[in-house]
């Protein structure tokens, strides 16, 4: 060609760069759904699933669970008398027995059904700023709290909003009946909420005594006691960091839910509830019958995979088996319809 290099360079000024990126030649891994990967893959996944499924199922089976409905719909129910909405401070007593040791630590839940804590306008009806101890929001709560923002006298509710207002207020006492006598089963209410809720998300205003922070505010409509007197036995368990309040404020995802009430970890019952007869004394306050809701108490222990839930174990087993079946089907298909090489 006889041109100097420089000239060539100048003449080819518009030549695109020769890089793997611009020329679309980036090195790449090109996996394919080949029989050698898919069929063994299904077998391995299937077997793994069956293994996991068995483990989950066995674990779930080992969890003990005791559910007691105390709504009092049926006339035979000891709580039937309390189902009358006019009954005030109604108490009822539920007895039950266990045949074997209910292994500890036992967790004591209350459960509600047909209760739409996940209803949007219910769920947003609270004021996070107020609940984190912001005194400004004591005076003027966020308007998300409607319709529980101010009372008729235009005094702000603290805590405001529907969620706080509807705090579950049934209380329970558990006795073991030993030789006809009632022996109190100690219930532990400490640390039943999330650590982050207790320490970060919910905070009382830095005012002592706490009561002063609530000056000029009113307690929520349905509450019998103001927030700073929720737990008379433990002054540290009051205000927004009351454990029962925290548990309630973590609203449920589904209309049927259970919430942790107490743990049974102390004294004679650290190993669990021994076989025997028990009596549950219920202070029946919370109205659910008007919307066909149900209330229940649940005693349960937990495993590494949490509470009793048979679904996961069964699902793993079923899907694992399906994978194995599928791999066989695919093997047959592959053998029958393998690419005709000569085509």
């Amino acid at each position, binding site marked *: 060609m006889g041109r100097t290099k420089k000239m060539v360079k100048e003449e080819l000024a518009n030549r695109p760069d020769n890089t793997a990126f611009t020329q679309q030649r*980036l090195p790449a891994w090109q996996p394919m759904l080949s029989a050698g990967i898919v069929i063994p893959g299904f077998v391995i996944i299937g077997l793994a699933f069956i293994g996991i499924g068995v483990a989950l199922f066995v674990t779930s089976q080992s969890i003990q669970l005791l559910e007691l409905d105390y709504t009092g719909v049926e006339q035979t129910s000891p709580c039937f008398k309390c189902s009358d909405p006019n009954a005030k401070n109604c108490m009822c007593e539920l007895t039950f027995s266990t045949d074997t040791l209910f292994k500890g630590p036992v967790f004591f839940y209350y459960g509600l059904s047909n209760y739409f804590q996940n209803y949007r306008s219910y769920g947003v009806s609270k004021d996070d700023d107020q609940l984190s101890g912001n005194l400004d929001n004591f005076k003027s709560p966020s308007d998300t709290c409607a319709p529980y923002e101010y009372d008729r006298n235009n005094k702000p509710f603290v805590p405001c909003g529907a969620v706080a207002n509807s705090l579950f207020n049934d209380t329970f006492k558990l006795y073991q009946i030993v030789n006809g006598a009632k022996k109190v089963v100690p219930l532990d209410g400490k640390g039943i909420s999330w650590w982050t809720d207790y320490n970060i998300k919910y905070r009382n205003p830095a005012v002592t005594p706490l009561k002063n922070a609530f000056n000029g505010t009113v307690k929520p409509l349905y509450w019998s006691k103001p927030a700073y007197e929720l737990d008379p036995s433990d002054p540290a368990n009051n205000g927004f960091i009351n454990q029962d309040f925290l548990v309630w404020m973590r609203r449920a995802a589904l209309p049927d839910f259970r919430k942790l009430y107490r743990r049974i970890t102390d004294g004679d019952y650290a190993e669990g509830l021994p076989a025997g007869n028990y009596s549950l004394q219920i202070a029946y306050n919370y109205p659910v019958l008007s919307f066909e809701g149900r209330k229940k108490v649940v005693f349960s222990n937990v495993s590494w995979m949490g509470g009793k839930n048979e679904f996961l174990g069964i699902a793993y087993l079923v899907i694992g088996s399906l994978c194995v079946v599928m791999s066989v089907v695919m093997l047959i298909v592959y053998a029958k319809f393998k690419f005709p090489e000569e085509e």
Partner: protein
Amino acid sequence: MGSVASYFGQLCGGEEKKEEERHLRANDRPFNLSYNYANNAIKTSKYNIFSFLPCNLFEQFRRLANAYFLFLMLLQLIPQVSSLSWFTTAVPLILVLSMTAVKDASDDIVSRNCNLKNKYLNNSVLGQKTEKWKNVQVGDIIKLENNQFVTADLLLLSSSEPLNLCVCVCVCVSCTADANLSLSGEVRCEPPNNRLDKFKGTLTLDGQTYSLDNDKVLLRGCTLRNTEWCFGVVVFGGPDTKLMQNSGKTTFKRTSIDHLMNVLVLCIFGFLASMCTVLAIGNGIWEVREGSVFTVFLPRDEGVNAALSSFLSFWSYVIILNTVVPISLYVSVEIIRLGNSFYIDWDRKMYYPKNDTPAQARTTTLNEELGQIKYIFSDKTGTLTQNIMTFNRCSINGKAYGEQLCLYKNYGTERVDFSWNRLADPKFMFHDYSLVETVREGNLEAQAFFRLLALCHTVMPEEKKEGELYYQAQSPDEGALVTAARNFGFVFRSRTPETITAVEMDRSVTYELLAVLDFNNVRKRMSVIVRSPEGKVTLFCKGADTIIFERLHPSCNKLKEITIGHLNEYAGDGLRTLALAYKDLDERYLEDWKQRHHEASTAMEGREERLDELYEEIEKDLLLLGATAVEDKLQDGVPQTIEQLAKADIKIWVLTGDKQETAENIGYSCNMLREEMRDIFVVAANTAEGPSVIKARAGLFWLQRTETVQDEKVDGDYGLVINGHSLAFALEKNLQMELLRTACMCQTVICCRVTPLQKAQVVQLVKKYKQAVTLAIGDGANDVSMIKAAHIGVGISGQEGMQAVLSSDYSFAQFRYLQRLLLVHGRWSYLRMCKFLRYFFYKNFTFTFVHFWYAFFCGFSAQTVYDEWFITLYNLVYTALPVLGLSLFDQDVNDRWSFQYPQLYTPGQLNLYFSKKAFVRCMLHSCYSSLILFFIPWAAIYDTVRDDGKDIADYQSFALLAQTCLLVVMNVQLCLDTDYWTAVNQFFVWGSLAAYFAVTFTMYSNGMFLIFTSSFPFIGTARNSLNQPNVWLTIFLTSLLCILPVVAFRFILIQLRPTINDKVRKEALPAPTPRRPPARRISTRRSGYAFSHSQGYGDLVTSRKFLQRLPLWSRQAPFTQTDSPLAQNQPQHYRTIAEEPEESQSP
């Protein structure tokens, strides 16, 4: 609102008034400006700095999708309805708007720069001022110099040549440059229109009125030739020029996927409305049955009953489910197209080093359509061919000379050295030494052969310096032949009307030119009668073999047979042949003939007929000398490209302004027409009326019969050649369907002698009735209309004219790059776009359907399943990059395999990868996935607790679980769809997942909550639930349950019904056999005659006018006046022979 819209419309668009008559004064700017005629700037940029923001926003909100999101945002401001915080819509909308705005701005800047570049040519305007073209106004007098482009329509005033041939002489006789300054002519003429062949107006000068017609204007797009300078008045500027008016409306091209997407978006709106209606009804029922009694804990607002609540929940759900209409869809689509356009710009394999031209995607919105082309309409000259004629072979006195082997590759045989010939053209190449020897040995026939070539023509010589000869040939064929004669020692040197001087083997000989029997399309031959210095009178004739052979003396029969053999060979190779013959004339007979010729040529009646008779009489009993074969050089790789495209099931139609013979020849040399075709229908009527059209019509009807018998499937290959006149007839309403059906059954369709308008009509016909994607490729201004009409226009760049490129969507330098553009870039773009759309719809539907299922468990209260921040970031951050990576890098098979299996292209033509069906499949798939994604987490956390007995079935944990499941599934699905895993893809996929967890943990952290308490209520959720084994087991389960069926389904599908892609990917197909060189073809049934010559030059060279070196600009086109007046002024330039000798050696 409407008035505001129209105000913006005016501000950003602009309307024009209708013009009745154009009235201008030369060099009187104030007068001319008062009419507000368009100046010469052709505006392509839309905005300026100040109008950008309002105009751009206005433009953007005219888009349905953007307006919809604005509406959604307003909806969210109503507290009763708002189910989401305002930022979930605002953040994406602002991001989308700003990205689009940035793109629009950069587009605008690019087009502005491009405009400047094109218009930066300086021009002299009288008054010693030099102006940029774009500033030229109507009425300005402009001086143009030789070889300059004319960029406005000018009324020609004077040129450097003393006697102007085609200029209104009366004006210019008195025009000196000085006089021009004070010229105060007034021009009245027709308003701007698109008729290239017509111009009507009057010029008033010094009280006298002259009429103006088409001969007196220079049109934009032409190049000034053969004159040093000229002056002209601008009559039409910029958008008013005939060329711009003729180039058709610039319609905004949209791809078929765009159209489909619009339909789908409408369907989705309908679907959204029905989902919301279902949920609203659900809400009504729930309110009646549950909500009315749940009032203990959630009292109703005043005056809200079930009906109102249901109405409000409808709108709340419109907000929540809006993600079915993905806002980022359009932006992502634009980005993908932009990226894929850059790949075209960057492709080295489409870069032409000879003139340093890279391929260019001038439109960035049509890429995927490149993968769906079904019809290609190609120009011939400059597109398929290089427009270079080379004298390749010849047959002299029964002996064939020239290359026998390697038609397309010249290496192997040595180039003949012509250094012995002082006047030889150094660029001329010939590869057969024996011919030179034959000539130099003094072989009489060979000498006569070249003498004929040197004398019998209408070429104008130009000798600026001693020994440096330039030929101005009216047709490239002639140029090639005369140059060949020159190199073989018969140099045509100069001519006067009566003489021709040639240098024959270094001896100057002057012949007396007695008569030129001009060429025309019926005669198909031309002759000259010359008297040699020795006094011998000879008639030299060259012409179509069939014509010459009829007129030969019987004594030549044997020679004729041999020559016919050679001619068949040449024709088989697609060469353009001419037969040469001569005849010695008797002096006395000639005198008599000349007398009669004179009488005939001055006769008032029947002049043409009488002349024809006379010519007929003298051109008989000729003695055959031989035949020439000129190669109309194809561009490199044209036959291979055409073969490849044909394999990809793309039909190629050639639309050319050239003559039928020329076009047919190219058809053969490109392998489009083949000897083994069953039949080639030639529909060629000569005039628009008359019996020939009826014949043509009969031909068409006959064709139609064959078609109805054999329906769409025809056995055997057919070809169709149709010319402009027949086409004009066939394009009429009642016949066009027949034409289309017939043409579509033929393997090859060649339309010759068509006007630019007809080209566009043909394209539109196919576009309209075949519902197929069309592509038009061309290089000249006469292809502009076709390029604009087709779905995709491709311009061949790097040639002289830029018009085709400027109106094209893609441009590159060589026709052969078309296969890479379509088979590689187009295919990939289509594949990527379809994968993207499928995945994108899947991802958004799945996301949204989960909300739908959740509605049944939350009292239809428009409670979202996910965290609001997740909703905001899902499309923009978490899933944006992996899918972009997929749609920018994915390749099912690499480019090499794409070439080897052009069949891979067909799925695009059949719309297989993305259609309404595919969309429905997408929806069903999302439906399944969303069921899994909602109900598995639902069942898994139902009534369960953490391993420390605390809450996990709370709303926030459930939201986190559901969104994590969703994101993992989406990423795994993307992995499954990705065929081509580059490092970038890996980075995007893993990076997105990592970003999700990082962002989630950050947003749910203590710090974020302490700073923005009310914005991040999910504090601690991630920590508390993602450390639970059952949460991870749930995520794992959902992912596999979503993915495994897809894997199994795809695997079985590959086994049962493997597509061509699967086969190629598996490389189960045998490696393709190397391409065999095309077998040598001997034509047995057709003449290879082709000669792109037109009538009228014989008269010119014998008249005295040619001394003025006729301005060729308005007569350059391959069309003749009678054939297609439309094209007369089209800038088409023939280069002289072998301008680029390296050309043939290019790889």
